[in-house]
């Protein structure tokens, strides 16, 4: 049984199910119990679960350690940050404490901690509210990092993250929050570490993360009209990375475009290209290409910030070049205006 839910509703459902199934699960976050309820995802949970959902002091660093400590004695905390930039205050606790706890004590104890982190863009969020630093977390052995796209995956991956006995960074793009999709009822999990083939194709692989999957789909649609068959991969998890799934696709198509929401240097798009180049070199028919956020802080000015984000049209153009398609035959998708708000023409389902 499925029905159509918005991503935020799917998240709320996952939280509800997890809390009902396991009394050790609890939620903490600035505003977790306020009327807006973390983008609507925690509304109603306080009524049902009382003190197992709590607001907290404005103290990201300390609270992450406190969540970790509670996990050491059997609790299963879910911590939430409304912007990734706020989570950065807790990098010691995340990267140097929680992530290493299991390994540095010889595997005695994992830390079942989920940290929901929101990334996003738009409305002049500016340099300090629009960083997409999933690569920082992806760089740390001991962390798992997921970036779902569909409502179904938001629910399934969140439930899997909560059940995981390791710290999981669960990254939500704000521009996906209001997109709907069919979501199975009840309990299920989506495996961490497995990519999803969004549409299969034979000419080129577009491997994307988070919101860039939407751009990749639009690019593939316009390529299809010009007779180019693009395979779109939603990476879903960036640590562990589904190398096998990526290579399977690249070996088939012989071409790769990697599209991430973060900047290129030291980022995920670079990793994807590196894996393909190292392991599928002889299958490649064209040089792989990378797309990501521009290599600068994101400014506020409305005429500048859109320039920081690659579009479906950029991906389609690169794909056309890779397959040797005459660009004139390509009807390039236009970015929706205004470009600092989510594209209203697509609200799901996929």
């Amino acid at each position: 049984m499925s029905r159509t839910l918005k991503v935020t509703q799917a998240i709320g459902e996952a939280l509800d199910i997890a809390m009902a199934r396991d009394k050790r699960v609890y939620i903490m976050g600035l505003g977790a119990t306020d009327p807006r309820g973390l983008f609507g995802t925690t509304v109603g949970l306080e009524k049902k679960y009382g003190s197992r959902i709590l607001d907290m002091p404005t103290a990201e660093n300390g609270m992450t350690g406190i969540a970790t400590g509670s996990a050491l004695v059997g609790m299963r905390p879910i911590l939430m940050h409304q912007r990734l930039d706020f989570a950065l205050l807790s990098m010691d606790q995340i990267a140097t404490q929680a992530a290493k706890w299991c390994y540095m004590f010889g595997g005695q104890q994992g830390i079942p901690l989920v940290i929901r982190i929101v990334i996003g863009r738009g409305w002049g969020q500016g340099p300090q509210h629009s960083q997409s630093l999933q690569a920082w977390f992806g760089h740390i052995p001991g962390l798992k990092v997921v970036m779902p796209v569909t409502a179904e995956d938001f629910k399934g991956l969140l439930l899997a993250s909560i059940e995981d006995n390791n710290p999981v960074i669960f990254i939500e793009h704000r521009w996906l929050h209001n997109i709907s999709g069919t979501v199975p009822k009840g309990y299920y999990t989506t495996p961490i570490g497995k990519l999803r083939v969004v549409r299969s194709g034979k000419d080129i692989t577009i491997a994307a993360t988070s919101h860039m999957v939407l751009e990749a789909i639009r690019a593939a649609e316009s390529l299809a009209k010009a007779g180019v068959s693009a395979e779109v991969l939603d990476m879903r998890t960036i640590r562990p990375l589904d190398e096998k799934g990526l290579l399977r696709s690249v070996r088939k198509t012989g071409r790769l475009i990697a599209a991430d929401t973060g900047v290129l240097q030291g980022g995920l798009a670079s990793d994807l290209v590196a894996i393909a180049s190292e392991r599928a070199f002889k299958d490649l028919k064209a040089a792989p290409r990378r797309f990501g956020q521009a290599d600068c802080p994101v400014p506020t000015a409305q005429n500048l910030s859109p320039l920081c984000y690659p579009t479906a049209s950029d991906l389609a153009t690169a794909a056309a070049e890779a397959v040797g398609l005459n660009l004139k035959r390509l009807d390039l998708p236009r970015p929706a205006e205004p470009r600092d708000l989510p594209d209203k023409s697509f609200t799901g389902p996929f």
Partner: protein
Amino acid sequence: MPKVKALPAKLRRDLYRSMLRLRLCEERLVELYPEQEMRCPVHFSIGQEATPVGVSAALRPDDYAMSGHRSHGHYLAKGGDMNRMFAEFYGKKTGCASGMGGSMHLIDREAGFLGATPIVASTIPIGVGTAFGSKMRGDKKVTAIYFGDGATEEGAFHEAVNFAVLKKLPVLFVCENNLYSVYSPLSVRQPAGRVIADHVRAYGIESLQGDGNDPEEVYRMSMTAATKARRGGGPTFLEFATYRWLEHCGASYDNDLGYRSKAEFERWKKKCPLLRSRKRLLKDKIVTADNLKNIEADIRAEVEVAVNFAQASPFPDKSVLFKNIYAGSGDG
């Protein structure tokens, strides 16, 4: 409180005028924001005008100030350029941060306003650092650091206060306690009965509470603190009780959300810093009704100039996107 000598009439008038300037500025921005031409998050301080005005009046033009996300008042009261502030909200090239930052990133170095950034508490250590630099340079400047009640929960605040006390740095820690961090009341963030000023005093810092809606009280307390700091007497923590009228972020009222009571809101509205000041000034015959009208007309004219300046200004050139990432790589 012991009876204190009245402040000079001109100063009292100036304090009022400066508060009205913040109020009219923000009211105009509130009117314009729904046009969606200012495309950035905004945190208004309507209701909180007395604190920045009183603090700034106690500072010298070349003293320093820093702030966080709710900084319009702090910037303007310190002498920040109004035209360039409006232009920044519109993301224009002429903005005080060249359109790079919007409302949450105000700066006017000529006015000693060294920067405001929206990561809660992040500018508190930076402000302690400017005071540390001042002390090392021996320039006799004082730094005022503005932040909210929420910011006192961050580790960075505590680390910074400790160092300021250790080195007797010339700092005014100005905490505007408006009872909320976004929609979260103090009761879910700090133990019942906690008085922030008492708590901070344990660091060995002089720590005082004042009426954050009374510019004259804020001024007196800040003047004492600034004088002490300038003479090498070290930092002071000043907690001012006040209240934000509008929603946390944005130009609307949000009392319908139910996170605070209508009664509480009405109680604080009665304590409007402008209303109270105006009454006292009239009663003490410091101003006449005519004076008040003229002051208001002057300010309204100034605000309209700023609106026009901002709206008429060009957006930044696209070529600046990759400039200024490193010092010396831009147009300045």
